[in-house]
């Protein structure tokens, strides 16, 4: 034990047995939201997390150190198929939340409508008004607010300038931070603890209400008996075996890659488990400005362009570290040295694509393998996104832009070449410098057990007492940053687990926080 209510698996050299009403696998946005909701309702909860706790002072400034410490596979897990695109997942208490860009979006109304239109069984299970109420409570608890202009920095102001010049809708990003000083280190973990990540909010609420958090323990098996989930087995980083028994339910909230992997490893193969993997692949554009941009300071991701969301495109300022920016700006030897000397003048923006491709998560030799091939339409969105970003950058004053596309110009100064890129650029996904940060759909919910893994109540169709709470259950991707919708859906999952009314009032912690600021339910631009 390292603290009251905490078990550190690094110190577990011998076996450990635990028991609770509910065992939650994963402590990211979904697991933390489930744990808080249940613990505050008086349910005994054990949360088991593969990663360890990290304190703000431990976070390193460089991307490599951060990725080596807190990301799964050093942030270099790869999908295989059409192109080896990296997908990024945090591996720490709080999941990806402590090392994400702090970007908050509410569930888009159009996406919710499409889910209900495709499966009427979801209508009663996911009432819009309840989702809105739950989202209000979460946003208050996390202190979600538009980026403070005082900490935006040049990089975010340049995107605003570029979007304004080309006539696209844009806005400061709504973020879950408190007292941000614009250190630009969200993706490495805020060294001052100013991000309201779930380890510092919802999971802290769960602990305060009596939940136990077991860190550095990788769950390997869901235990079942007579068709019912009764607990989990895991292995601690210290070498000990961990057995956590659940009197009432096991809730899996381990991500759209790890959740189906755990189900498959446990022999729970009913339905399309692992199938329908969806994502938001992103591509980036760099540009060289005469004025200093200093990408490494200011709110890491503080401005976004929403005007093409109806096309499945959303643009964000990126917040990577100095090392990745240098690698992205490119060149080798004396060319790279010159770019490093000039790094303060380079900006890097990203386009997130609401891709239509479906992939699959399989287990190979006990490890997840994600097969995923962006469709021709998706690759068309890559080209379109790069063209629009390039036009915005040039309109904002960039001297030149670099789309990072193999086989295409690395130094573009004429917008007509950007049109050429969209219309005649590469058709292969492998030609683009892409990355995936949001994943969905691999244990999706629905009324038909042949087409879904869990029902509208988040309960597994075949295994009693087993629930899935994370973005695996989402019928589709969202086209926006999903952490808040994931938390909101997970709260509904928890209410189903505990047999609570879906429209019950917000938890005590959220209610207390809600007294400080009025709710902003502004419909998101479409």
């Amino acid at each position, binding site marked *: 034990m390292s603290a009251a209510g905490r078990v550190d698996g690094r110190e577990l050299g011998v076996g450990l047995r635990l028991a609770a009403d509910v065992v939650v696998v994963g402590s990211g946005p979904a697991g933390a939201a489930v744990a808080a909701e249940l613990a505050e309702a008086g349910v005994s909860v054990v949360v088991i997390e593969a990663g360890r706790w990290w304190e703000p002072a431990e976070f390193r400034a460089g991307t*490599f150190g951060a990725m080596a410490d807190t990301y799964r596979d050093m942030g270099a897990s790869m999908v295989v198929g059409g192109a080896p695109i990296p997908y990024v997942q945090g591996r720490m208490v709080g999941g990806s939340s402590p090392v994400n860009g702090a970007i908050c979006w509410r569930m888009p109304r159009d996406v919710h409508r499409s889910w209900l239109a495709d499966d009427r069984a979801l209508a009663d299970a996911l009432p819009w008004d309840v989702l809105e109420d739950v989202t209000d409570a979460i946003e208050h608890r996390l202190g979600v607010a538009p980026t403070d202009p005082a900490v*935006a920095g040049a990089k975010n102001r340049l995107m605003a300038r570029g979007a*304004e010049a080309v006539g696209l809708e844009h806005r400061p990003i709504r973020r879950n931070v408190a007292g941000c000083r*614009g250190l630009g280190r969200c993706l490495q973990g805020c060294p001052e603890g100013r991000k309201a990540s779930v380890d510092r909010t919802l999971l802290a609420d769960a602990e305060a209400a009596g939940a136990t958090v077991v860190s550095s323990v990788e769950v390997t098996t869901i235990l079942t008996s007579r068709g019912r989930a009764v607990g989990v087995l895991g292995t601690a980083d210290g070498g000990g075996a961990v057995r956590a028994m659940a009197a009432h339910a096991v809730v899996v909230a381990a991500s759209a890659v790890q959740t189906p992997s755990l189900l498959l490893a446990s022999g729970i193969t009913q339905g399309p488990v692992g199938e329908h993997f969806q994502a938001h692949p992103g591509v980036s554009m760099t540009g060289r400005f005469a004025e200093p941009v200093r990408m490494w300071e200011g709110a890491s991701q503080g401005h976004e362009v929403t005007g093409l969301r109806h096309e499945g495109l959303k643009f964000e300022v990126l917040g990577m570290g100095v*090392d990745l920016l240098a690698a992205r700006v490119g060149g*080798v*030897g004396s060319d790279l*040295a010159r770019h490093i000397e000039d790094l303060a003048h380079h900006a890097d923006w990203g386009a997130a694509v609401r891709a239509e491709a479906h992939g699959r998560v399989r287990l190979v030799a006990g490890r997840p393998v994600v097969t995923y091939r962006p469709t021709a339409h998706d690759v068309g969105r890559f080209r379109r996104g790069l063209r629009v970003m390039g036009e915005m950058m040039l309109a904002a004053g960039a001297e030149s832009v670099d789309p990072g596309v*193999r086989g295409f110009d690395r130094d573009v100064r004429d917008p007509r070449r950007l049109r050429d890129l969209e219309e005649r650029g590469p058709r292969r996904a492998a030609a683009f410098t892409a990355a995936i940060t949001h994943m969905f759909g691999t244990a999706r919910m629905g009324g038909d057990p042949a087409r879904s893994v869990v029902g509208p109540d988040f309960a597994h169709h075949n295994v009693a007492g087993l629930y899935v709470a994370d973005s695996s259950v989402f019928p589709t991707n969202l086209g926006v940053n999903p952490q808040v919708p994931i938390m909101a859906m997970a709260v509904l999952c928890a209410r189903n687990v505990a047999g609570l009314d879906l429209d019950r009032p917000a938890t005590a912690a959220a209610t207390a926080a809600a007294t400080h600021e009025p709710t902003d339910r502004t419909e998101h631009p479409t």
Partner: protein
Amino acid sequence: MRRGSSRDALVLAIIGRPSGLPGPERVDLAAFWRRFDTSAPWHVRVGLAAADVVVARIAPRLAGHRGGLATLDAAAADDLVRRTAANPVLRPLLDAATVVACFAYFDDDRVEAIVRGPLQLGAADADGGAR
């Protein structure tokens, strides 16, 4: 003559000599490789090993040098990696190695701190809001 492993030589050649910053030869690469070897997933380690073999060992000999990249002077090493990067077949190997080289170079706190400098946030532009 450069000392150290051929992957050290690869990092030195890729980074070049940025002025105003410590040279990459002054970075503690041994400490970096210890962390890299325990943290990087297998496919990243394999990718770097491939770049090491092809770019740091084979390419110099194909270019007429008697030894690998570690035996070349700075100008010859720079010329070699830049010519290798211009080869569309070898370019992906060098791209992967460039990411690792940047990780190694900027993992040194002195380099990172010099590049970042003190926080210079100023007042927001008038056009910083939403439209």
